[in-house]
């Protein structure tokens, strides 16, 4: 089958490419990148994307799809639908499922569930068996089954010795260890520790709980020569630690979630559990530091930490409600609205953070805009203004603080695996 995408601006910073052109895709493969006369290809389906920007398919390296074990909240398919709707053609899903992704069987199960979907689902394997912090998971076996990185996300790797061994071991396959940075003995609160937590009387989590474990990861990566990736970085001091480490040449990368560059702990004042996440919303100085870190490259990518929870779980009392919000369908809009349109990141930087760098960190191929390559595109309408409405979300869960938020810029189509998602529908192409 042939489709023609008319009037695109093709932007791929990985190829230094910024070009106005039409694209002909044949059976999912790029067949032509040139001006195409539609009348000469009467069989082809034509999409008029005049004025729209085509970038390599976006990739979110931190999502929770809850399958197996929490299918009432999200499944591999519903999560992938949400990803496609949000403009993503690939994700990496975290291993805190039940059972955890700590065996080849679970890795294969997830890959099998995602088979045939537009969105590429790449499992992250657990660092330790059952994420219990007692012994290493079979990392080589997980890798061979398709795991693209390792994490005990939800908690940090329990001990420095386990993390050291994981970093050493993962060197054999050049995989990163993705750390949820939180010192267990300082954790356990419901919000960031600040004057706001004092005022609200909620138990709190200090930023130093994050900073300590960021530092531990950096020092161990430096010592072992392994690769550490800091998940959902949220504190100013942690950003500084990563910046200094990168200057020293440590193999460290970092991601930030949109809620950490758009919201502060002031939002907790109404005790709405849709503002409860871990790491918690910090203060304005931290938000500023995250944006600065994104600007100067200290923070390599933006990742949603998409964490679906059921309504009944989120309706629990604030101290008992689970942490996390869904984010796949607001991530791009928030990034474009708050960072691109406000002049904080260039469009090239946005593409690096949302498409190129996550794949580089996980050693995945970056989509190339060349004849003969697989079409893996996200097509953006940068100026489309809308209010995010959770009613239209494809996720099975509704836990978002961004319902009703005014956004500018969204994905209008994604193409991958010989499929297009356009106008709310998947079609084979």
């Amino acid at each position, binding site marked *: 089958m042939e489709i023609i995408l008319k009037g695109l601006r093709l932007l791929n910073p990985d190829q230094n490419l910024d070009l106005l052109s039409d694209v002909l895709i044949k059976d999912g493969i790029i067949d032509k990148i040139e001006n195409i006369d539609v009348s000469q290809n009467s069989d082809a389906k034509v999409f008029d994307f005049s004025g729209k920007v085509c970038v390599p398919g976006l990739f979110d390296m931190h999502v929770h799809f809850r399958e197996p074990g929490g299918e009432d909240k999200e499944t591999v398919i519903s999560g992938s639908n949400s990803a496609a709707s949000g403009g993503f053609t690939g994700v990496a899903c975290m291993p805190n499922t039940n059972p955890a992704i700590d065996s080849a069987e679970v890795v294969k199960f997830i890959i099998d569930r995602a088979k045939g979907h537009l969105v590429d689902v790449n499992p992250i394997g657990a660092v330790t068996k059952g994420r219990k912090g007692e012994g290493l998971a079979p990392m080589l076996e997980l890798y061979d089954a398709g795991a693209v990185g390792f994490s005990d996300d939800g908690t940090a790797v329990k001990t420095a010795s386990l993390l050291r061994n994981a970093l050493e071991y993962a060197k054999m396959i050049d995989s990163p260890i993705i750390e949820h940075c939180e010192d267990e003995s300082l954790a356990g609160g419901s919000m960031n520790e600040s*004057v706001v937590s004092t005022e609200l*009387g909620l*138990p709190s989590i200090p930023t130093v709980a994050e900073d300590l474990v960021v530092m531990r990861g950096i020092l161990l990566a430096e010592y072992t020569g392994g690769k550490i990736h800091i998940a959902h970085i949220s504190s100013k001091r942690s950003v500084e630690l990563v910046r200094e480490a990168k200057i020293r040449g440590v193999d460290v990368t970092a991601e930030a979630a949109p809620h950490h560059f758009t919201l502060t702990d002031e939002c907790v004042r109404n*005790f709405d559990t849709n503002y409860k996440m871990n790491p918690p919303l910090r203060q304005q100085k931290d938000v500023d530091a995250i944006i600065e870190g994104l600007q100067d490259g200290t923070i390599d990518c933006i990742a949603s930490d998409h964490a679906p929870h059921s309504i009944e779980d989120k309706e629990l009392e604030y101290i008992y409600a689970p942490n996390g919000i869904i984010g796949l369908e607001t991530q791009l809009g928030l990034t474009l609205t708050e960072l691109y349109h406000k002049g904080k990141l260039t469009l090239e930087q946005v593409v690096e953070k949302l498409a190129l760098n996550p794949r580089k960190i996980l050693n995945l191929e970056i989509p190339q805009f060349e004849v003969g390559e697989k079409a893996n595109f996200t097509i953006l309408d940068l100026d489309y203004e809308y209010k995010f409405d959770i009613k239209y979300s494809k996720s099975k869960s509704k836990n978002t603080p961004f319902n009703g938020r005014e956004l500018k810029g969204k994905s209008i189509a994604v193409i991958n695996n010989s499929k297009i998602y356009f106008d709310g529908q998947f079609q084979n192409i």
Partner: protein
Amino acid sequence: MSLSSNHLLGLKDVPKEDIQLILDTAITFREVLERPIKKVPTLQGKTIVNLFYENSTRTRLSFELAQKRLSADTINFSKSGSSAAKGESFKDTVKNIEAMKVDMIVCRHESAGIPKYLTQISNAKIINAGDGRHEHPTQGLLDMYSIREKVGKLEGLNVCIVGDISHSRVALSNIYGLQTMGANVSVCGPSTMIPWGMEDFGVKVYNNIDKAMAESDVLNVLRIQLERDAGVLIPSVREYHNYFGITQERIEKNNPNVLILHPGPINRGVEISSEVADGSSQVILNQVTNGVAIRMAVLYLLGTKSEE
């Protein structure tokens, strides 16, 4: 005269006139409590639910007694721990109780913010009887009442709250209420028990009890949670008593005129010596009586207030 709000969620942002009105109304009810027949028909026909999700003896008894003295119909609901763990969600419980047509809910909960949440899911008038480490407004009010009763005023007084400020719901209510009434509020305790950004509340912080005592007119001494704090926030109960305990010797040395309050229950020999507790027992037990009067005042003012 009526209160500006339909609920009492905390003392933050409660205007001076409201606090004044509650304190003055309590005087009337304090008199009722001295009569041979201690009951008035004021809230006859009103239904009040005491929704206690956390253990409480004193506060619940005090509220219950206040309700009975006002002739309200009361029902009690006690539960502890996460609502989900018990099978029914908090929201469903509240919705069920509300379906029984209640006028007011008095709520104690270990999670901060629950009283505010109640105002969103219920049409009843809500009184916060303590939420997490957040607020305990009727305790704040009764402390103010007790101080005013003893000293005759609140304005310009130096009031120091002593103990574990971080984990206290009484501290914030005291701070907000007393500041609104023109008192200077300070806190005193080991630095592990002083919460983040205390100075931002306009509160002076002491780590030295002798200094705090010398510079204060009133000490409001909070209970130390023995089982939770020893070995964690403080090395031992003994060290706490030696460095922060209120003793007769300290009072005589620093400020013989200082007024000692304690919201109870008292740990004798920990935050306060037996000698001081007994010496101040009249004030401390009077606080308990005042608590009933204050709760009667709050229940009366909210219960008879017409919805706007």
